[in-house]
């Protein structure tokens, strides 16, 4: 059995050696294709995960004026809850918010500083379309801070949604084109192998070699193209993630790129690459090869 596998792989490596330039072209194109489709997939996943940490589209954050006492807070909560379209209003005490801020930003110099944060409410709505009306009514409450006392993240949400759409478009359009180009290159490489090795294949057929003996090395060759492309694409995803993380870190301390599970990226990319190479080479070896 091992002897057989060794023979099939040695046949595949012979083909790779003979078609080295075409193989390199197929590998690099597969790499870019997988980077664009797979990498964008991971980017979308990252943006989605980031979006999940933001207040929901159904939430409005209400900041109160300074020096509002407990009774006023209670009264404000009642007033907010009475507004049609409000599902709930949860108090976010200024002390708790200050503690959380200090925990999340340990490098920020807070020692000796008085808590600058106001008391706030997290208001959930029953319908996101009512957000403007509800926000307008909350602003009218005297204890609510004027100006930016009512905040909701619709715009941020929309921006994220747009970012995902753009990423998806880039992934589908560019990645799709590169996938097709890569597929044509792998197909051509396998067909060239078939032409280059027609003498061997003829002899194999004459002596009674099975179709599998002839075809399996070609499939392995295609899978190797996909696999090599996937390994390079995984490294590119890792590099791009690192680059993006460093850039954002240097521009802003607030927006952070989440960690990348490289093992997961590698596993997914490798599976995709192998399946891609296999599909292309299966297409190339279909039918008669004479």
């Amino acid at each position: 059995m091992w002897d057989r596998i060794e023979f099939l792989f040695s046949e595949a490596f012979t083909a790779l050696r003979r078609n080295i330039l075409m193989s390199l072209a197929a590998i690099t194109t597969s790499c870019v294709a997988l980077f664009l489709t797979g990498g964008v997939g991971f980017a979308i996943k990252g943006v989605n995960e980031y979006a999940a940490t933001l207040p929901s589209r159904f939430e409005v954050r209400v900041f109160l004026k300074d020096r509002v006492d407990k009774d006023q807070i209670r009264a404000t909560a009642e007033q907010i809850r009475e507004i049609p379209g409000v599902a709930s209003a949860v108090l976010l005490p200024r002390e708790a918010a200050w503690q959380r801020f200090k925990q999340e930003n340990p490098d920020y110099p807070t020692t000796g500083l008085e808590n600058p944060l106001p008391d706030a409410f997290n208001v959930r709505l029953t319908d996101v379309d009512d957000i403007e009306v509800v926000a307008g009514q909350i602003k009218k409450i005297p204890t609510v801070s004027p100006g930016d006392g009512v905040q909701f993240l619709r715009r941020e949400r929309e921006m994220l949604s747009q970012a995902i759409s753009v990423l998806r478009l880039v992934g589908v359009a560019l990645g799709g084109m590169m996938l097709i180009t890569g597929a044509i290159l792998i197909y051509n490489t396998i067909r060239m192998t078939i032409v280059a090795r027609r003498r061997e294949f003829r002899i194999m057929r004459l002596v009674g070699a099975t179709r599998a003996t002839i075809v399996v090395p070609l499939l392995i060759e295609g899978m190797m193209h996909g696999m090599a492309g996937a390994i390079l694409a995984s490294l590119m995803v890792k590099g791009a993630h690192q680059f993006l993380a460093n850039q954002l870190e240097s521009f802003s301390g607030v927006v952070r790129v989440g960690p990348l599970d490289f093992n997961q990226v590698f596993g997914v990319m490798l599976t995709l690459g192998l399946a891609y190479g296999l599909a292309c080479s299966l297409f190339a070896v279909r039918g008669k090869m004479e």
Partner: protein
Amino acid sequence: MAASHIEFSHVEVAYTKHVTALKDFNFSVAKGEFVFLVGSTGSGKSTILKLISREEQATAGTVSLDGLDLGALHERDVPTHRRRLGIVPQDFGLLPRKRMWEQIGYAMRAVGKTKREVRKGVEQILEAVNIGHRADAFPGELSGGEQQRVAVARALINDPEIILADEPTGNLDPHHSAEIIRLLVELNQKGATVLVATHDVTVVEQFGGRVVTLQGGKIISDEVRNVG
């Protein structure tokens, strides 16, 4: 008369409406026979060999081997069928970048023989065709006769019961031609059924035996020629 080993019954092979290789062709070969198929180019002799090796299929009639209809053979069973045959192509079919022992070893590996079996078998097979002393040579370093010997050797890797040689002397001088036919006769004497397609009349006259002459896809004579 001996029972038919290979049987052609009303076989027709038509490539197009107007080009027909064999027409209502009836022919049989007994086990252990040595048959020369002679005729000019396009007479149908190579087609006969290709029908037996299932490189081609009859458009009408049946070709059978020990009663097995080769036309009805499923594609996946063709390799098993071919392992009963030893096929010697006219152009030797040697791989330019492989040494002689590698040519045999490669073919053996292709049919599933292990490395150990290859190590044991290659030398034996090359010796059987008297080319063992050139085992390390590349095809370009050998004469046509030596190359054809290696092609015959490769045909022996499955210990075949039938040897099909298509113009095995087509590229050889008379001396080497006789050498190759002698080799095939020796294999026949060891029990193999041998069919040789040739237009080399000199060789046929030299060795005699059953000679089937074809013209335009039909048998015009089927006789046993004795050598004086």
